[in-house]
């Protein structure tokens, strides 16, 4: 009897069920409509990347004959190889730096006791409020100045401007990532730490061999966030990089579309497809954990 009630409560707990089948059909129809709207631009993007420029201008939905030559053409015409390589380098450095810096900081906030912890954490949370546009100008001035300083010490290679430090170092420590990781670390059971201590492990070993393996999902989320923002970055690179040697893919594509080939629509679309390709591949492998991570971060506020 009690079991039956429990079971029923559990089925109801899943969702408010609709009794009529028509509703299910309508729901699917609406969802599929939504999915078509969400996917439509992507499908057209791929399809038009195989058209000729005239076909795109004529508003065709699908190419008469798919032209696969567009991809190598776009790759060469927009010099995408170079820009892509730049973005890969910058993104890899940023993500690696982010994890190296944010994971220990989050661990300290979550599981260590030290003087001024709550005050420091509060200050860090307050900086999340500051919009990027407000820090744009001072950060630019700071980076220009640091670039000169570092150049004076390390010579030409130590420059920040037109070089990787200006593109990566300001984005390595993200308060939001630290916050996200801290929330997860703080939820790990205290018994783990007791057990580790009895085995003679210190904080560093506990972090390395217990906390990090258990926190694959949030760490993946943070890495993915960092990857996305680094791969998409446009405003900041426009300011700090003046040579193609370090310009990222977003810049390369924008320049190609606006000034180099404003009329070669098919090559623009092929370039756009090439730019999102790494992101799509990465997303398909990590999407479950990543989506969960975002949903949870939204709930915690």
């Amino acid at each position: 009897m009690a079991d039956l009630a429990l079971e029923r409560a559990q089925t109801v707990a899943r969702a408010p069920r609709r009794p009529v089948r028509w509703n299910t059909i309508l729901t699917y129809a609406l969802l599929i409509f939504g999915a078509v709207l969400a996917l439509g631009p992507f499908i057209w993007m791929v399809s038009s990347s195989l058209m000729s420029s005239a076909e795109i201008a004529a508003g065709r939905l699908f190419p008469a004959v798919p032209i696969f030559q567009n991809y190598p053409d776009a790759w060469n015409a927009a010099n995408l190889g170079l820009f892509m390589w730049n973005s890969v380098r910058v993104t890899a450095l940023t993500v690696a730096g982010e994890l190296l810096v944010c994971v220990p900081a989050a661990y300290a906030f979550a599981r260590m006791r030290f003087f001024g912890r709550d005050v420091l954490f509060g200050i860090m949370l307050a900086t999340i409020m500051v919009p990027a546009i407000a820090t744009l100008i001072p950060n630019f001035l700071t980076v220009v100045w640091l670039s000169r300083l570092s150049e004076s010490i390390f010579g030409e290679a130590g420059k920040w401007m037109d070089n990787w430090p200006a593109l990566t170092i300001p984005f390595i420590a993200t308060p939001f990532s630290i916050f996200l990781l801290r929330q997860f670390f703080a939820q790990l059971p205290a018994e783990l730490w007791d057990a580790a201590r009895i085995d003679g492990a210190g904080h560093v070993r506990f972090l390395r061999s217990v906390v990090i393996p258990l926190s694959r999902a949030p760490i993946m989320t943070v890495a993915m966030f960092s990857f996305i923002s680094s791969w998409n970055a446009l405003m900041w690179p426009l300011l700090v990089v003046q040579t193609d040697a370090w310009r990222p893919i977003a810049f390369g594509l924008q320049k190609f579309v606006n000034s180099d080939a404003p009329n070669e629509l098919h090559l623009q679309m092929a370039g756009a497809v090439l730019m999102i390709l790494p992101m799509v591949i990465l997303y398909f492998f990590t999407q479950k954990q990543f989506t969960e991570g975002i949903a949870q971060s939204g709930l915690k506020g």
Partner: protein
Amino acid sequence: MASTSYRPISRRRRVLVENLTAYAFLLPAGVLIFLFGLFPVAFAFFVSLYRWRRFPDEYVGLTNYERALGDFSHVLFFWLSLAALLYGGWLLWRLLRQIVTTPGQRRALLYLIPGVVLAAAPLLMVRWGGVLLPVIMNIPRRLRGQQETQGMFVNELFASFRFPEVLDAGNVMLGIMLLGVLLALLFTRWLKHAALMWRATAALLALGTGALLMQLTLDTINAAIASAREAGETLPIWTQIILISAGFGLLGAAYWLWGRALRQPGDRRFIGLAFVAVTAVLGAYLLIAELPRVLASADRDMLTGFNITIMYALFTVPFQLAIGLGLAYLLFQNLKGKTLFRMIFFLPYIMPFIATSIVFSLLFSHRQESIINNLVGAVGIAPQKWLLEPLGVGRLILGESVPPFLTGPSLALIVVIIYTVWTYAGYATVVFLAGLGNIPGELYEAARIDGAGGWQIFRRLTLPLLSPTTFFLVLVAVIGTFQAFTQLWIMRTPAAGRSIDTVSIYIFRQITDADPSYSYGAALAFVLFGVILLLTFVQNRIAGRRVFYG
């Protein structure tokens, strides 16, 4: 294993080791967040007080804010400094009252002495920073034209600290700091209430900040009046300040009265209070009507930018959230393919803005045969110029004679709005979906037993319980639209002119223009920051009433 090397460690030592390890863990993140997240806020304000092109030029006070906000800047800074002064005064008064009313604590008044010194120390530190910064930032300029050798910059950097004015400010700061630490140690040993000392310090710090800000404001106002007098005009700044402050004061009073009126039991008293409240609102309206005149001298382009930003937010956020909620509600029923749908909806959010904006600008091409023109053609609408169209939609629909307030966002902005909704709706869906999962299922069952229908359950149960999620999403979405940059920057066309230039774009143009002005850009960024803070505050207040935290 570990037990063989076991040695009893003193508690003190363990705490010390734990502290040091924690700081070592935090150090890299702390340095970077300070340098690129916290310091820039102060630095931006500092830059905005100067004429600053590539390098710092001369100190100009609040002139950049005058240029942005016109005479309203005086009102604003007057309020800010007054608020800081009142807050400090209130803190001090509370402290003094507590000391005086508690017998045997009269001696605690002495805490004001270390309080003054301790409050002076951070202010002097800011002053030292203010003197040092221009010297340091000007190093590249001082080195210009010289044959630069390695290490020269570093030498100049060390030399900067020995500039006479930097040295003076630094010595005063160090002296006061040392004195403060000594006094604090002395007093906490002697009297046992350290908390009182920190409270006195906080109150005096707020008072000091307010006084400095007020000084700055008064200087600016006097300079403005003097320069107007030279030009043979009169500037009614004080009248304006008094009128507008009185207007907002009345508005606040009306709000308060209305709240009281609602709590009155009798009808007559309710009507009486409500009448007073309405009169106050009318009076406030008359006084605040001065505001457009005060803003008349403000930067037109900036005001237009704010106008466009507000339209952008107003047309984006509701649709984005409504679509997100609808899709989440549909998905929440146990359907086959839930994960697949969720993944598809989420795709636009994570794809690079640049790539998808290019697709949208081709979809919404101005050519007659473009996909969207074909689509709207099927419904019988003439082909549009879309992203190349600077005219407002109100004007396009209703014709030339439409009044200005009905012109609405430009068609170009509408395209950007559609794009933004498309991008973020999936994000809202995912977050709403998680929020729906958090509502306990028993509640649904109870409602069903009570005979509630589907819509009733949604309206009376789901929506209220979902309000924290909704609140979070509104906050994120509004702040997001106020900061939006990449999609707008890419979709700008010369033909559409400035009709999609939000404030962020306008700020960015200040630094990328042929004649960049960092100081003015910083002042504008500060204004935008203030607006975002105000919006967050207002939303928090509203949410405090409406949001139901189960």
